[in-house]
């Protein structure tokens, strides 16, 4: 029923236009009923988006190839899961997903914050709806998922490299992240527009921001896992523009999550915070643009599509509008408190912010420079991994160091003596670890040595924080040590959840340094029965076989793996030839050893007619910690976001005092 889908999108466009126009008018002139009506239009737009999405899902599930979109991205033999995932694997569908999530998340944020930020909401609605209008317009006019055609016999199928379970989750998570960042943006700008620049918009959006940031971060890691298993070059992050597209808003959102604490505790950095929110939102639009427009040479996207100019125009509009608004409100934003000392928690947050934003901007420059160069000098250039690696180290190492020092510095002002006492434990742990690593032969890579020493330092600081906090809690309330730890975390979820996230980042660092600095790679041509040695493993080529899979012919080389005489079993690496899609994809063999914390990674690069095979074999130490980091990251984020009754009561009291809360 493509007509219903199209109708729903047109209705959605009308509703968002109304919500934006009437909502702005109502906010400007203070018309309450009109503002309520605009909010209802935003909710109704979500309903229309749901209808359109259901139509598209039904068409996908029924493999209705009269939908051009369905025919382009699925085939009869494609398993159902991937067929439904085609919802977000094509351009029009992913725009629909953006719109669906935007109206859904936006409506929920508006509905749930009715009481808290009553004066701000009339502006929030038109801003959310304005962003929604842009996407609805694209969906109706430029790239509709409901174009019809005479149904072909079979669809073109899905790009084989997307036929991976991680691809079911990776794109929607990233979209939840990108779109989720619209919420803090809309509330921040609405707070500026309504001149209500107190803390309430921050309280109202805290969990939305944290949620978006968590989805984005976890989505990036799932993408890395997908790249590791499916793209199969042996690494996990390649500084590809499309990967960077998600990394940039994540870095800026991370900076915001830190600096916003300074505003809450010290009423400082108010201008900086709204700038960060606007920057994060702009970068998430830019990220969608990069993924979708194909302007940049990446291994991922080469669709020269028609939505590029629209996106650039919209990003420019958003940037200009938020800049003007922030400048006009500078007088009300100016804070009354100043930094008391350069050795204080707020100063530490400031340094962390500068490094994070510097890193995000250098990545941005690396992504944009090729375009600028082509436009200005007429010479296209590529910015390679060395550029990014260099800056990741230059800004990343101080960031890691700050992650260790920051939590040990007191708010407002700390004497260097007190800081030195606090740093003694983690510092000496780091020195001991560094010396042990040198003796153990880790000196082969300076970067690895420094990275691991820093990692031990930060972990030491985190453990120290937990130990000292638990001890103090224990002394205060008695009871068991477990109860003291639980009460410590429960009383300050954001701080201790944050430490768990820090630990996750350290795990990531240890894994990334492991694979980057201490990995081994060997290549060889093996005839049947021949062996090769790599990183302590011996790999013997047993021969190859062909299997007919569901929608592909699977060619596999069987390889017997052993280590120091112990037989470790057989792994199979090879290629899949997909029939409908007429594509081949590498299917690498990964043998994870959780005890040793390393992966044996085998790429069967080329099968020769004489029965021999070219193998590329890598030993990736500690790579599993990268995936573990993803889980710890989510756990930490959940602790931070978990509803806190004590905090709720405090806020309720404050807003009851304000009389800003309707006593319903």
């Amino acid at each position: 029923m493509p007509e219903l889908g199209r109708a729903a999108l047109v209705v959605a466009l009308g509703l968002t236009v109304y919500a934006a126009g009437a909502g702005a008018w109502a906010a400007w002139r203070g018309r309450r009923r009109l503002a309520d009506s605009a909010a209802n239009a935003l909710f109704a737009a979500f309903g229309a988006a749901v209808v359109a999405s259901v139509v598209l899902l039904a068409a996908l599930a029924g493999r209705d190839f009269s939908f051009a979109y369905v025919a382009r991205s699925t085939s009869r033999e494609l398993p159902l899961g991937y067929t439904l995932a085609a919802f977000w694997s094509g351009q029009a569908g992913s725009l629909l997903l953006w719109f669906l999530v935007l109206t859904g998340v936006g409506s929920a944020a508006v509905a749930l914050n009715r009481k808290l930020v009553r004066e701000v909401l009339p502006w929030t609605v038109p801003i959310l709806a304005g962003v929604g209008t842009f996407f609805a317009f694209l969906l109706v006019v430029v790239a509709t998922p409901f174009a019809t055609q005479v149904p072909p016999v079979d669809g073109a199928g899905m790009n084989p490299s997307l036929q991976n379970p991680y691809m079911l989750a990776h794109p929607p998570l990233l979209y939840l992240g990108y779109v989720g960042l619209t919420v803090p943006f809309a509330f921040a700008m609405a707070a500026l527009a309504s001149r209500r620049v107190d803390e309430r918009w921050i309280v109202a959006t805290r969990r939305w921001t944290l949620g978006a940031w968590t989805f984005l971060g976890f989505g990036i890691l799932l993408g890395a896992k997908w790249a590791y298993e499916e793209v199969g070059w042996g690494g996990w992050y390649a500084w590809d523009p499309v990967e960077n597209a998600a990394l940039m808003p994540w870095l800026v959102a991370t900076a915001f999550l830190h600096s916003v604490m300074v505003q809450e505790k010290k009423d400082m950095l108010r201008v900086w915070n709204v700038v960060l929110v606007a920057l994060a939102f702009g970068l998430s639009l830019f990220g969608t643009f990069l993924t979708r427009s194909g302007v940049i040479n990446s291994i991922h996207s080469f669709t020269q599509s028609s939505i590029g100019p629209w996106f650039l125009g919209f990003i420019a509009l958003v940037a200009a509008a938020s800049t003007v608004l922030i400048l006009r409100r500078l007088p009300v934003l100016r804070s009354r408190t100043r930094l008391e000392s350069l050795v204080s928690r707020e100063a530490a947050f400031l340094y962390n912010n500068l490094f994070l934003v510097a890193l995000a901007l250098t990545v941005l420059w690396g992504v944009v420079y090729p375009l600028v160069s082509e436009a200005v000098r007429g010479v296209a250039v590529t910015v390679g991994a060395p550029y990014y690696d260099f800056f990741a180290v230059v800004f990343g190492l101080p960031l890691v160091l700050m992650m260790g020092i920051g939590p040990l510095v007191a708010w407002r002002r700390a004497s260097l003596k007190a800081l030195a006492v606090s740093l003694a434990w983690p510092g000496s742990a780091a020195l001991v670890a560094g010396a042990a690593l040198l003796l153990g032969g880790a000196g082969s890579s300076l970067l690895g040595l420094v990275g691991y020493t820093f990692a031990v330092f930060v972990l030491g600081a985190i453990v120290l924080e937990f130990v000292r906090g638990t001890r103090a809690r224990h002394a205060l309330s008695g009871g068991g040590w477990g109860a003291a730890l639980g009460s410590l975390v429960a009383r300050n979820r954001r701080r201790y959840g944050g430490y768990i996230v820090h630990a996750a980042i350290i795990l990531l660092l240890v894994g990334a340094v492991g694979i980057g600095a201490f990995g081994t790679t060997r290549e060889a041509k093996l005839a049947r029965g021949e062996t090769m040695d790599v990183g302590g493993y011996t790999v013997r080529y047993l021969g190859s076989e062909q299997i007919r899979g569901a929608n592909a012919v699977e060619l596999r080389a069987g390889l017997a793996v052993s280590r120091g005489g112990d037989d470790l079993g057989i792994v199979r690496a090879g290629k899949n030839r997909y029939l409908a899609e007429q594509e081949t994809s590498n299917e690498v063999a990964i043998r994870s050893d959780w005890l040793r914390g390393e992966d044996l990674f085998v790429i069967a690069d080329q099968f020769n007619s004489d029965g021999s095979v070219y193998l590329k074999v890598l030993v990736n130490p500690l790579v599993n910690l990268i995936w573990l980091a993803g889980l710890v990251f989510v756990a930490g984020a959940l602790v931070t976001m978990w509803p806190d009754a004590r905090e709720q009561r405090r806020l309720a009291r404050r807003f009851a005092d304000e009389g800003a809360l309707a006593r319903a």
Partner: protein
Amino acid sequence: MRRRRSPARLVIALSVAATLAVFLLYTSFAGGATPSLRPSQLADHPGKVSLAGVVLAPVRGDARGDGLRFRLRDIDGKATVNVVYRGSVPDLFKAGRNVYMRGELVNGVFVAERDSLVTKCPSKYVPKDS
């Protein structure tokens, strides 16, 4: 009303200056970017470049032996160049595909760096709209 300079501003100014200095030093010494060219532009740019184009049949030779040999054409043009490449060949590589690689022009033949060949898939998600 003039406000006294806060230490925060000093810190920000110093860090911005330091960042810029690192950035400029890096980009002037290490370069960071290599020109990305089409076959028709190769003659004007000696040295290491990355080259993008369409693979023309026939593709001969062995990438693991003395090299895979083929001609590469401008993606939207007629100029071509002979290419020799050694190393691993991506799955999607075949005549008609858009590819890019790093390397340099030696005696009229573009000698690609080992393992630098990358195919541009038509899209991350969408098969080519043509």
